[in-house]
């Protein structure tokens, strides 16, 4: 099913290792396995000059300092030290639960999504709540996580008319993905609800709540709970760590 790995050139500062050309959990998992592998190789001293790695749906970008190492050396190192089948990818990932107030003004597209998917509005919300999502990548904006896969019944193309302004916190779906907008911005996804937690906080130890390969579940809250949490957010008293999903005893 998986096409062979391709090494693509990105100048003298990066090597792109491409696994496919699709949005597919299997590809994302392969990308993350390689990412962990590259980190290990670096720790073992095989990849001097490694600066950072950027996972995407389809590929891993391996960014290097060209004064220290060449992309051709990186390629050779990867070919001499292939990823082992039992590579552990989920050692450091967090599991988050994100509160969402669905429908009404918070999620103005619930009804149009219901219509397009031939589901009831309750079924749309229930199917969005049912999945455990994986953070496939962060990008587009700082802290903007692309999460997948959504329930196949919710798979829809982007809206034909993108909105000029989507409010920060909006929880939206498009294609087989869902997201929480960290910032007010234009956007073409279908808005189902809003999460009152900040996705980005420039005062936190790490500025984004989500990291690649984290998992996310959503839980439904009512408008009162939303307003209370939003107040907390404005007062800067929300601790991301309180929203880690500790496995039940």
């Amino acid at each position: 099913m998986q096409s062979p790995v391709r090494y693509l050139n990105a100048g003298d500062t990066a090597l792109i290792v491409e696994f496919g050309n699709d949005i597919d959990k299997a590809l994302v998992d392969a990308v993350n396995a390689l990412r962990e592998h590259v980190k290990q190789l670096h720790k073992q001293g095989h990849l001097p000059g490694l600066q950072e790695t950027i996972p995407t749906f389809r590929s891993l970008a391996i960014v290097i300092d060209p004064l220290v190492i060449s992309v051709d050396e990186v390629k050779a190192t990867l070919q001499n030290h292939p990823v082992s089948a039992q590579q552990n990818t989920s050692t450091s990932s967090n599991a988050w639960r994100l509160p969402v107030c669905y429908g009404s003004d918070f999620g103005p597209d619930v009804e149009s999504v219901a219509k397009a998917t031939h589901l009831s509005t309750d079924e749309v919300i229930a199917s969005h709540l049912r999945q455990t999502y994986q953070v496939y990548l962060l990008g587009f904006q700082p802290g903007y996580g692309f999460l997948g896969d959504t329930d196949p019944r919710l798979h829809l193309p982007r809206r034909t008319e993108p909105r000029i302004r989507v409010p920060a916190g909006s929880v939206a779906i498009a294609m087989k993905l869902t997201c929480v907008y960290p910032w007010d911005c234009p956007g073409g996804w279908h808005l189902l609800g809003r999460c009152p937690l900040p996705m980005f906080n420039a005062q936190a130890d790490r500025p984004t709540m989500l990291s690649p390969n984290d998992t996310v579940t959503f839980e439904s809250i009512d408008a009162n709970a939303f307003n209370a949490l939003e107040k907390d957010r404005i007062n800067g008293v929300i601790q991301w760590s309180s929203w880690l999903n500790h496995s039940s005893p």
Partner: protein
Amino acid sequence: MSLVVEQTGMFSTLQDRGRRGLRDLGIPWAGVGCEPWMRFANRLLDQVEDTPVIETFEGGLTLRVKTEPVKISLIGDVLATITHSDSSVTQANAWRTHTLVDGDKLTIKRTGIYRCAVLGVQHLDVTPHYGSASTYLNASLGGLNGGTLQIGDDLPYAEQNAATLGEHKSLQPFQFPGEKNEAADGNLTWTVQAVPGPQDDAFTDTALETFFTHTFTVTADIDRMGARLDGPEIKHRSAKHKDIVSDAILPGSVQVPGIGKPIVMLADAHTVGGYPKIATVTSADRALFALCRPGTKIQFDRVNTIAAREHTLQLEESVQQHLASVSPVVDTHLNTSRLLGLNLIGGVTDALDFDS
């Protein structure tokens, strides 16, 4: 003691080497567009090469010294003046240091043949934000408050070394290998080395040929995030090759959206995107896009990864040599004895005396 912003200029920010290692969280590097210039500015001031500097586009920036004297350096094709508290004006040449005293106002009037200039400040005291003082506006990171310099902003600096305050250093202007600043018709053509890929296979063979043989003009649509170029249409292999499932973007990536006009991504480039990238500018030549003005013609030279790295290593060697060529200047304006005479350094300082 600080430099107070009296006029902001068109766009002025604090930048250092950039905020590395956070692209996986969607956070761009930011950082100074022309890294060698930052290194020259700081070397002239005998300080760590990636101490934050002020990057300012076009003219207009005016800074006023509040209280203690400060040494600064100017890099670029800059026309700058210092207005003293007695209203006398002296010219401040670029590629050297200057000492400014209480009440002096430094104005960058023009940035000459380049789009920007770099201003180094000795012992500039800015707190790094996630490892860097570089300003990234979209997420309010770095700088003073995550934004551009604003009128009234205070740029604090630590105490200067009084013994060397009157001593100045200079450099010859540095020219990048791709820069050719003479053109009969006034339209400069700069040469930039680029490696095909990562998505060169999304384009027709003719398009690739066109990209590397024709010149492209830098449009007015250029900022710290990217430069849109105009030129012959770069055709995708088919309609479905116009968009890809999102892939990493780096400074230097040359994206080609559906309309077939390339965009060179720069320091503030976002981290992922869905346009295929026909080529990647070598890290050595990225700096040229921080300097070029709209109207500059760009010729992309096709190189492989080995030649690209060789080019970068060569530039580093030239920059190192240039850094080593810093030499003292004999200053007629403000030397140590004049500063001593003004009672500004050493000995007993009488503020009242200076005020009169």
